[in-house]
């Protein structure tokens, strides 16, 4: 019955006219659960003409003939601790019902302890800013991990890979599969390693069975971009299909005792994320600078034909880029999952931020994504000092627009030549 939300209201599936709705409770992390037992009254010019109660899926249906009505929620039927999101509007008036029309209405509820999102009091501005900055750095490091692959793939093949977010999700969900008690029950550390390998393999499969054959038959870059978008949708919804829509957590390192560092409190998990990210990123940077493979990568990114004629196996380099890029994205996904929980579309959420980070740093460069990501992470987190949290990603778009206006090649990129 939850499927009702997915269909347009005028699907014409029901013949009875009346009011319907799916009532959910939103918790502190934005998760919605159905609310059972909420009562609604329908009135016509002041007199009661119908009432109904939500079922286990949070759905209710009150049949009324065609006409104009008001519908109100029975406050007493809302459990303790749960509140209406709009407490001033427990009733909607002047709603028309036509013959055969089943009209959907919304009355969202907020869970225990969840309050309006803007303006948390308590901590002083400096403390909040510091905490946000630390969160921003953590987030930035995670974005950096995920987007290196994106930048390198673009550099070596010219493909803007819109399906890159799904590699992140594969890593996070893979670790969940290995880790959760319903899955394999392996400790998260080992599960993470397995997940990274899984994501790396996914990257390799991508290249070997999809992109390389497409390059061979001469498919243009724009067509490949559209294909990557199709792949992104396909991948995302398959993951949703398999994993369900709820946010989940890993078995270990979930709730930890915070400790104080100066004015802010942190958990050990934060430090681990920072540490692991920095170490990995430094290793990757060194590898790209110093190793033969790294140099080959840069050569292919710079000029593919020239690299090929100097004896570099371009296909092999590209495959390496995909495997490493995939593995890094998967690792980023696990860290992201540790930091904010695991969801089927977490990678897609991150995709826009990755693009902002990579564009800021310079598409195709090696160090670009790192600096771009840190700036993006810091900026959007600190922006919540002035804007509500659910809009913080807007900051990333602003960065994107400004950079494109002022310096489209990014901080580290080269200006392009024409002709």
């Amino acid at each position, binding site marked *: 019955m939850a499927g009702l939300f997915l269909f347009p209201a005028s699907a014409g599936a029901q013949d009875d006219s009346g009011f319907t709705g799916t009532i959910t409770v939103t918790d502190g992390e934005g998760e919605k659960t159905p609310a059972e037992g909420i009562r609604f009254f329908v009135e016509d010019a002041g007199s009661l003409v119908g009432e109904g109660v939500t079922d286990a899926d949070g759905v209710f249906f009150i049949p009324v003939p065609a006409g104009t009505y008001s519908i109100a929620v029975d406050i007493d039927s809302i459990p303790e601790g749960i509140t209406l999101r709009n407490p001033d509007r427990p009733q909607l008036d002047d709603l028309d019902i036509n013959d055969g029309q089943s009209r959907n209405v919304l009355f969202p509820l907020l869970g225990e302890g969840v309050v309006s999102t803007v303006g948390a009091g308590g901590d002083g501005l400096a403390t909040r800013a510091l905490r946000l900055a630390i969160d921003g750095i953590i987030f930035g490091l995670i974005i950096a991990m995920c987007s290196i692959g994106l930048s390198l793939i673009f550099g070596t093949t010219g493909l803007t890979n819109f399906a890159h977010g799904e590699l992140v999700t594969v890593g996070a969900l893979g670790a969940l599969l290995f880790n959760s008690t319903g899955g394999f029950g392996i400790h998260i550390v080992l599960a993470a390693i397995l997940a990274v390998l899984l994501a790396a393999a996914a990257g390799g499969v991508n290249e070997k069975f999809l992109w390389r054959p497409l390059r061979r038959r001469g498919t243009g870059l724009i067509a490949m971009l559209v294909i990557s978008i199709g792949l992104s949708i396909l991948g995302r919804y398959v993951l949703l299909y398999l994993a369900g829509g709820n946010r989940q957590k890993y078995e270990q390192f979930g709730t930890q005792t915070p400790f104080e560092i100066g004015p802010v409190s942190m958990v050990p998990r934060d430090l681990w994320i920072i540490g692991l990210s920095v170490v990995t990123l430094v290793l990757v940077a060194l590898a790209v600078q110093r190793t033969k493979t790294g140099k080959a990568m840069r050569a292919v990114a710079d000029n593919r034909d020239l690299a090929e004629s100097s004896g570099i196996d371009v296909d092999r380099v590209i495959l390496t880029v995909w495997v490493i890029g995939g593995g890094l994205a998967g690792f980023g996904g696990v860290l992201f999952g540790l930091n904010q929980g695991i969801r089927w579309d977490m990678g897609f959420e991150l995709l826009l931020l990755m693009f902002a980070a990579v564009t800021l740093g310079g598409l195709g460069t090696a160090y670009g994504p790192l600096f771009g990501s840190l700036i993006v992470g810091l900026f959007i987190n600190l922006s919540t000092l002035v804007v509500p949290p659910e809009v913080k990603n807007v900051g990333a778009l602003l960065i994107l627009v400004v950079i494109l206006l002022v310096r489209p090649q990014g901080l580290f990129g080269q200006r392009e030549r*024409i*002709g």
Partner: protein
Amino acid sequence: MSEQELNPVFEGVSPTAGSAKPDAILTADKVTRRFGGLTAVNVDHLEIQRGVITGLIGPNGAGKTTFFNLMTGFDTPDEGTWNFDGIDVGKLPAHVVARKGMVRTFQLTKALSRLSVIDNMKLGAMQQTGESFFKAFVKGLWSAEEKAIEQRADELLERFKLTHMREEFAGTLSGGQRKLLEMARALMTDPKLIMLDEPMAGVNPALTQSLLGHVKSLRDEGRTVVFVEHDMDVVRDISDWVVVMAEGSVIAEGSHASIGANQAVIDAYLGTSHDQALDFNEEDGEDA
């Protein structure tokens, strides 16, 4: 022009790099363009004489195409100013420069393959009423103009012997035919100065003569032509004047004869250490 005759307009013009011309249509000053550490163009002073054909030659990487890009607004220089027909066109975008009468073609022909030949030609006409968004809806506002354009296009197609390909997609044309199309299309803009980037590249020898004839006819119509070429026979055949670039700068100017004997030009093409005769002595070949 044969090797001996020099176009009379150049009487008294000094065959040195950056020399002044009696009636310059394009004048460039201190134009530089750097890419990272590399200086692609560094032209101190250059004047192009009106109404003649000037050949622009030089080894690969000399900066000729980059110079074209800069003059026509397809690239922005680091420094420099230049005037076209008395107007400072330095800061103008490419399409405005074209509208002012300085039109260029491209090294890799840009025949618009997915348009028909006749549509390619009609595209070339400038200031079309029908190209404005709101007027486009009302056919009556532009249909007469369109007919006139079509007539002009057909005349040019006739002149360039492309009439039989009129309805075909430009993508089906041969390489040489595309060169002709690009030149004909550029003529639709009624340019004062037409800059041809390697017009003979990739064209079979049979077609070259025909193209040369067309280039000369442009001059005879009163237009100015600047063209980049590598084929010295072509340069000798049609240039009234030659400008030599190397490593971004203009190193020599003059008639074809004077260029051929110019030491700086020889150096640029062959490298400097040539005062020793090239020696292919058999004895030196094998290891001792």
